[in-house]
């Protein structure tokens, strides 16, 4: 097992023990990643947009009454300036 693999294993163990989900969305490269707990908890494998409401797979995960408070922090700078 090389260093990289070792680090990844430790990292996954840590997030599982902390019961924390981590995810990454790289819009530049098109790469997305969500730690296995996300699928385990929500039944969805991948996150394509940090604004969950923008993607069909994750939109249903956000509790209806909290939709607005969830969207607001995800606004782009340009959108925010327009508020």
């Amino acid at each position, binding site marked *: 097992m090389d260093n990289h693999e070792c680090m990844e294993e430790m990292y996954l163990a840590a997030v599982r023990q902390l019961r924390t*989900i981590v995810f990454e969305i790289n819009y530049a490269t098109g790469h997305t990643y969500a730690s296995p707990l996300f699928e385990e908890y929500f039944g969805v494998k991948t996150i394509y947009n*940090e604004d969950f409401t923008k993607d069909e797979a994750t939109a249903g995960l956000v509790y209806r*009454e909290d939709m607005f408070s969830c969207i607001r922090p995800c606004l782009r700078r340009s959108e925010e300036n327009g508020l």
Partner: protein
Amino acid sequence: MYQTLFAEKRGERTVICRFVMKDGSINWYRVVLQYELLDTGAVEKVIGTMKDVSDEIRSSAALQYHRDYDSLTGVPNIQRFTEEVNRLLIWDNGHKHAMIVFDVERFKMINDLYGMRTGDLVLMHIADCLKETVTAPDTYCRMHSDVFCICMTYETKGNIIRFIEKFKKRLEENTFGFEIKTSYGVYLSDSSDLMEVNLMCDRAALAKRRIKDNAMQFCAFYDEEYRNEIVKNSQIEAEMERALTEKQFVMYLQPKFNLENGEIVGAEVLARWKHPTKGMIQPDDFIPLFERNGFIIKLDEYMWEEACKAIQGWRKEGRRQFPVSVNVSRYHIFNRNIEQILERLLEKYELTPGALSLEITETMFFDNADDLYYLLKRLQEMGFRLEVDDFGSGYSSLNMLRNVPVDVIKIDKGFLDDTLNSEKGKVVIRHTIAMAKELQLQIIAEGVETTEHVNFLRGSHCDVAQGYYFAKPMPLEEFNKLKF
């Protein structure tokens, strides 16, 4: 703040919201998003973490609930109410606001008679009625025990009265099997009157106190005059104990005269309060209050002792002896020691019971006829002379003459004034005197102030008179200058 973050090409945002889990349950998550931005401002990369914070949120919400709401009834508590009313007063200051404080009459009796659980159910019923009847932005709270408070906007005093009547009626619709009676105190503020919430509540609560003075009333409004009276009374109450120990209460004596020969045949003891800063306080300003708070017992007993001292002094000087009348308050009727207290005083000053004449009022018979009858019987058998003060002011005078063991009746001043204004009145008073004589009772006319009074009483064969016509009440030193 965001612009600064974006200018650094990096940003972080946090959101806490609920997510629907795979199994359908709902949990709170804290989502932290870290952005990396391109020079154009567009998002290049997002790294996010999601942490379940449901326990944290729920316990904090529970804490918040317990901080703000009454655990039994679920209505806001006074802290929450204060915050809400403050907001209401600031945002809605174009309107007039009413503060209504109300409680359940004899709530303790409900608890004692039907159990604490029933008492709790009554409070919960009140809470339900409040939730139904009071609509936002008007608000309400449970202040403590069975005391609730409502703050509402209003146009006219009539609006408030109608609301209270409606609310009262709604409270009465219940299945407890007993009546829930409530009483309300209201403070009305006008739109310019931005007052502290607790002060508004205090004023409404103060208004509610007025209801205690009037059994027919269930609602009273605050007014400044009543507040001043309460303040004055509370000052008197704060000073009364000290006044007694510092001997600020002074015995005044008003002589009683034989209408035939003009001799002094008795004296009545009257209390005066010589206040060190306020001067002489008249009995009307403190006796009714002392009768309400029970301090009258101490004052009466102090006056009894002063009277005994005076009688002993006269005896030592070889003066003519006559009975001195002292007041017996309604509190003494329930004080089983009254006989012992009087006996102890007589023994201390070496007097016989005939030295004192005990004055009771006719109105005492309304509530305690049996107790009073047996007490008077015992006192009469001990040798005390018994007088009925204010005879004619009650409604059972004749019945009382027939049944009660008394030796003297004192015709009330008001009764005397009224009867002298009409022929019928004169007939009534003449026959009362004649009847009392038949029953071998002595008659004393009080409040005799004019020659017309004196002539009429002499003509009606009244024995004894007392009043300003003959002499005003006076301190002992002055009384001692009289010839007897």
